[in-house]
């Protein structure tokens, strides 16, 4: 068996097909993006090497780039400081031993499996000033003066999109945290009960510390999802009005496929990759502490 398992031809047979597809359609493109980012190129005429020009343009000349960075920060902060605490609350609720908790868990999680396109199209209609449910509900509640074109106004567009992503993904973090909570042994709570730690105290001194690994994963996931946001803004606002909801991924898409600036688009893509990798690495460093043992 050992000999059969080190047969070169067999190893090739098992690895080469998958690896080829992966290399050609994923790995090589990543390297090519880095190469393109140093070129000026419209996708048709020959490329011209321009060194760091695309990056200089990005950091100094392009105003909507910084708007996109700032919007990413808004998404990131919402993900970590609004969505995650809400998810933790939900996870605590559905972890209680009570009837029907599985039903609630399933309901809270269901939006996660729906596509971002679907959810976004649905909320475009919810926010719609004419047929939308939101304005109609506000009028029914005698708050008609609050009604407005939510996605069409620079003051409310970003907030409206953030509400949709929170609604869409709150169940995702809930599920991961729920799995983590299930993994905490009952003994700890019983021991804590003897010391008088019940309710919030048990959450504060048992659940939270023992969940720190899972929380770290959630923070990293939320941050990466925030930085990668594309579909929701593409479908709901296309970055507008006046770049108030634009994101890096959307800018990359628009520069490359609408304005034919393939070099500049690639530089934006490289920025995005580095941003994701560096922030994930830093978060992992900062948030990793000594493992807690009781």
């Amino acid at each position: 068996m050992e000999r059969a398992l080190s047969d070169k031809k067999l190893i090739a047979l098992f690895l080469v097909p998958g690896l080829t597809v992966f290399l050609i359609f994923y790995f090589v493109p990543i390297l090519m993006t880095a190469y393109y980012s140093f070129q000026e190129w419209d996708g048709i005429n020959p490329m011209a090497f321009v060194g760091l020009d695309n990056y200089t343009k990005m950091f100094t000349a392009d105003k909507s780039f910084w708007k996109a960075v700032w919007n990413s920060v808004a998404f990131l902060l919402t993900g970590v400081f609004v969505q995650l605490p809400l998810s933790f609350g939900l996870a605590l609720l559905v972890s209680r031993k009570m009837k029907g908790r599985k039903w609630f868990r399933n309901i809270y999680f269901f939006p996660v499996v729906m596509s971002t396109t679907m959810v976004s199209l649905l909320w475009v209609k919810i926010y719609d000033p004419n047929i939308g449910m939101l304005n109609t509900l506000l009028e029914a509640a005698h708050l008609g003066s609050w009604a407005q074109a939510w996605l069409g106004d620079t003051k409310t567009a970003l907030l409206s999109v953030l509400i949709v992503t929170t609604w869409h993904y709150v169940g995702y973090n809930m599920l991961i945290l729920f799995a983590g909570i299930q993994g905490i042994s009952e003994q700890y709570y019983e021991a804590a009960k003897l010391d008088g730690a019940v309710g919030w105290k048990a959450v504060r001194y048992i659940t939270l510390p023992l969940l720190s690994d899972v929380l770290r994963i959630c923070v990293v996931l939320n941050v990466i999802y925030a930085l990668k946001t594309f579909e929701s803004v593409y479908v709901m606002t296309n970055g507008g009005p006046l770049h108030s909801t634009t994101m890096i991924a959307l800018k990359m898409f628009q520069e490359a496929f609408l304005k034919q600036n393939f070099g500049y688009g690639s530089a934006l893509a490289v920025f995005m990759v580095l941003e994701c990798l560096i922030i994930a690495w830093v978060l992992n460093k900062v948030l990793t502490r000594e493992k807690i043992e009781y």
Partner: protein
Amino acid sequence: MLKTTKNTGIYLLMILIAVLQLFPLYWLVVSAFKDNSEIIGGVVWALPTEWRFSNFSEAWVSAKVNQYFFNSVSVTLITLFCVLLLASMMAYALTRMRFKYNGLILFILLMGVMVPIHATLIPLFMILKNLGLLSSRLSIILPYIAVNLPIGVYMLSAFLRSMPKELEEAAFIDGCGVVKSFFKVVLPLLKPPLASVAIFVFLAVWNELLMAATFIQKETLRTLPLGLMNFSGQYSISWGPLAAAMVISTLPILLAYVLFSDQMEKSFTAGAILK
């Protein structure tokens, strides 16, 4: 006494959150049966006065949701089959077979889990154009396979590493070669993690928009997310048929959810921990 009031309070809170999560979807479903005058003038939470199934037939035929649906089904099934087969072969080779570049390959695959797909979009467009694949189903199937392979390999190798080798050894003693023991012994044992990978890939592919929007240039090949987006542009005034189209495109997910919700929870938590 105190305990019951507390519990009632918690139930009420949980029901309130459930309503917040479900009400937009409820509105979608009832709108799918209404016409514009009823949607604009009517009460938001009211059931339709007349159940207009015509919205569904309009979406299915005139708005070509049938075509988008078929495109999504075929792209998803082909991708699923290839990812499951290729990922399990790779995972088997990487955990059971003996060769030098094991670590290197796993490292390269790890990049596929970490790097956002957005970074591959522009070169992929060029590669597909040069291969003459733009405007064909393959233009999204091949990238979908490539994108989903790494996570599949990781989930399956984690399982394979913890699986005892005795059964395979027995198969070898009975005279099976590597290929035969892989298909007859290993693959059947991989069913649980394969189900998790399958759900993960199904949702990722069924819901994908960015690559489809970039690489699919022929109207007849549009997948559901892409088709719906276009549809919403054209039908910006009549919400009923669009809502019907959206309901149709969510039905397979709802069905998968009802049938495999436990498996789905597993695959989401496993996927999250990998990323």
